[in-house]
């Protein structure tokens, strides 16, 4: 049984200017100790998916309108708030892009850490404080005894993020969700934080969902990747397969539109034309169709299912042998993925049918 199993998750926001179709039927599994990257550009639903798992969607606008979130077999969507509170932090912990949003500015680090530990463990103040010192030492803080008495604003961005990691791992959760944990940091500090994160989670065999828009970050850190676009998982594969043979036009586009540090200078970029869709419209067909060079006629009408790229007897959803899947009616061939464009002679992307208005 998978540690976490998200099934057909649908999340919508009711806002004054319409319904936002943020997550449109997302399914994925995660084994204990596994690392999963969740990539995609701004607004594609990465954070909302995970906030739904944690049941932390902003109320009343954000609503889970369908699906299941099974954690060790138990559907979290049916749990009451008290049950959820017992789970958060202890079983599933989360760190955010901006640690200031999750640290209380008027409490010292010590007060916050001791409180977190005592909320879930029967320990004395002294024991909790000793554990806090250990945790800060573990994340490489010098003079942890003294730093415990500091307030969050007295730490630099990188140090705050380490405090967050220390607090997130305090109760040895089975799953850690890290939402863009290094996006606000400089690269050298990002390297410090990611190194720490990957060392600690592999030592403790913590399962990790790492959310980022940076394909480089997941390339070195996660074993498996889900690519999201407009509230759908459009491609899913183990990390090596995804980069060696991307099988969805959006993934191909992302890889060709970003300069790589090791590219030859002057190597041209192939941008993805157009802009991401407005999620206030209910999705019709494949959401990538207006920007896709591979689109065929059916793309405008029907969303393709997430299916194996190569024929297989049994679909594996987790582990190193996870089946490479993509949701596409007209997958790029290996050569096309390398070229970054369709190579079939006379291929013309299907024009938008007149009757469908988006």
């Amino acid at each position: 049984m998978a540690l976490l199993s998200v099934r057909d998750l649908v999340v919508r926001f009711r806002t004054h200017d319409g319904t936002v179709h943020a997550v449109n039927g997302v399914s994925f599994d995660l084994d204990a100790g596994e690392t999963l990257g969740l990539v995609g550009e701004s607004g594609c639903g990465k954070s909302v998916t995970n906030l739904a798992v944690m049941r932390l969607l902003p109320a009343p606008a954000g609503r889970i309108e369908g699906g299941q979130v099974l954690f060790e077999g138990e559907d979290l969507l049916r749990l009451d708030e008290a049950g959820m509170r017992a789970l958060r932090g202890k079983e599933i912990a989360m760190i955010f892009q901006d640690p200031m949003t999750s640290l209380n500015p008027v409490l010292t680090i010590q007060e916050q850490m001791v409180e977190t530990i005592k909320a879930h463990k029967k320990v004395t103040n002294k024991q909790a404080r000793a554990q806090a010192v250990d945790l800060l030492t573990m994340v490489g803080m010098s003079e942890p005894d003294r730093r415990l008495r500091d307030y969050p604003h007295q730490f630099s961005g990188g140090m705050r993020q380490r405090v967050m990691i220390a607090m997130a791992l305090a109760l040895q959760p089975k799953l850690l969700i890290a939402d863009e944990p290094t996006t606000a940091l400089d690269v050298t500090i990002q390297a410090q934080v990611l190194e720490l994160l990957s060392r600690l989670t592999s030592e403790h065999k913590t399962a990790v969902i790492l959310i980022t828009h940076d394909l480089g970050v997941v390339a070195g850190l996660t074993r498996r990747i889900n690519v999201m676009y407009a509230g759908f998982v459009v491609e899913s594969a183990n990390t090596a397969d995804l980069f060696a043979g991307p099988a969805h036009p959006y993934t191909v586009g992302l890889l060709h539109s970003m300069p790589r540090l090791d590219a030859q200078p002057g190597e041209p970029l192939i941008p993805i034309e157009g802009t991401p869709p407005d999620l206030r419209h209910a999705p019709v067909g494949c959401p990538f169709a207006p920007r896709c060079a591979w689109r065929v006629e059916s793309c405008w009408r029907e969303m393709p299912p997430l299916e194996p790229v190569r024929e297989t007897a049994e679909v594996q959803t987790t582990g190193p042998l996870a089946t490479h899947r993509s949701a596409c009616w007209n997958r790029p061939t290996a050569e096309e993925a390398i070229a970054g464009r369709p190579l079939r002679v006379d291929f013309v992307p299907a024009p938008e049918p007149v009757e469908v208005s988006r």
Partner: protein
Amino acid sequence: MTFSATPEAGPVNPQATTPAEAANRPLMQIDGLKMYFEITSGILMSRHVGDVRAVDGVSLSIRKGETVGLVGESGCGKSTVGRTILRLYRPTAGRIVFDGQDITRVEGSSLRAVRRRMQMIFQDPYASLNPRMTAAGIISEPLEIHGVSSGRERRDRVRDLLATVGLDPDYGDRYPHEFSGGQRQRIGVARALALHPDLIVADEPISALDVSIQAQIINLLEHLQDEFGLTYLFIAHDLSVVRHISDRIAVMYLGKIVEVTGSRDLYERPLHPYSVALLSAVPIPDPAVETRRRRIILTGDVPSPSNPPSGCRFHTRCWLRERLGNPERCVEEEPVLREMATGHQVACHFAEEVDGTAEQVQVTGRPGRGAPVGSAGAAAGVAGGVVAPTAPEGPQPRPRPRG
């Protein structure tokens, strides 16, 4: 480099140069540029208690038609360099020469005349456009300020500019919120182009954009450069992007340039310990390459620019210094930007020792190569008799996570 010439030393006389000299001279030349911001304390009687040395002795030249990239971590002074050379600030010291004219201290109408030829593109396409003005209004504002054209002619120019940056000329009467982020950045580019500038300082022009949109703007900037012969100072913290667009790259650390080199060389043979660390920290979207690379994990944070470390500013975090047994020279003597035999300019006393180290080789994940780099000027070698253990063979010393 500590440049002591006072800016008041007098402007370079543009008439004194021959046409050949004019063709060869850099479009922008800065020498020993310093830009300090005063720190004051007290509310009623504010006292000057120190300076943020945002830019502290920067020398750089930009040739016509060239793209020079400026990289470095947050707060190292990149934007301040850009803003100071556009004379949005009055420099504390040093000299700025634009197309042969010393503009360090120009004011008033001569400053306005120079500003026409230099424009800026900003990071945040949301904040940098006035929400109450139409796209056409925003783009024609510089034309208005400088009294260029009017009426029909101006309207035609705006339509032209919209088309040039890939927007529908009919979109001129829309407001910023009606455009996407990428489109807004195109409006910013159109505004910068309005007065036919020679130099464009692009300060993080794509950092705020969606990943899928960034390449559109990079390609647009490259295309405009070819079409109009523009010269760019391209400021960004993303080394992959800077390397893609730049001919040469200057790496900054704490208000100083530590290395300047061609963008190919910077990745293949970085010679400043900080450049090596910075490059090693940039993730490459390719797991096959990533498994061969090793990161240098720098310890600690960047020190404060109001109280920079003595000697070499990088000495508090330098892996090479530690490797060399912490030579005193790093703490006592400030390294100058010197030219190496390979054409790099590097500000490190021990730059020769960087070449061929496991750290340098592991940036690319490729085996090392090439002849040793001697210093172009002084004799190569390690002062102070410290022998550097630079053997790249044997078990690779995995960079230690913490010092």
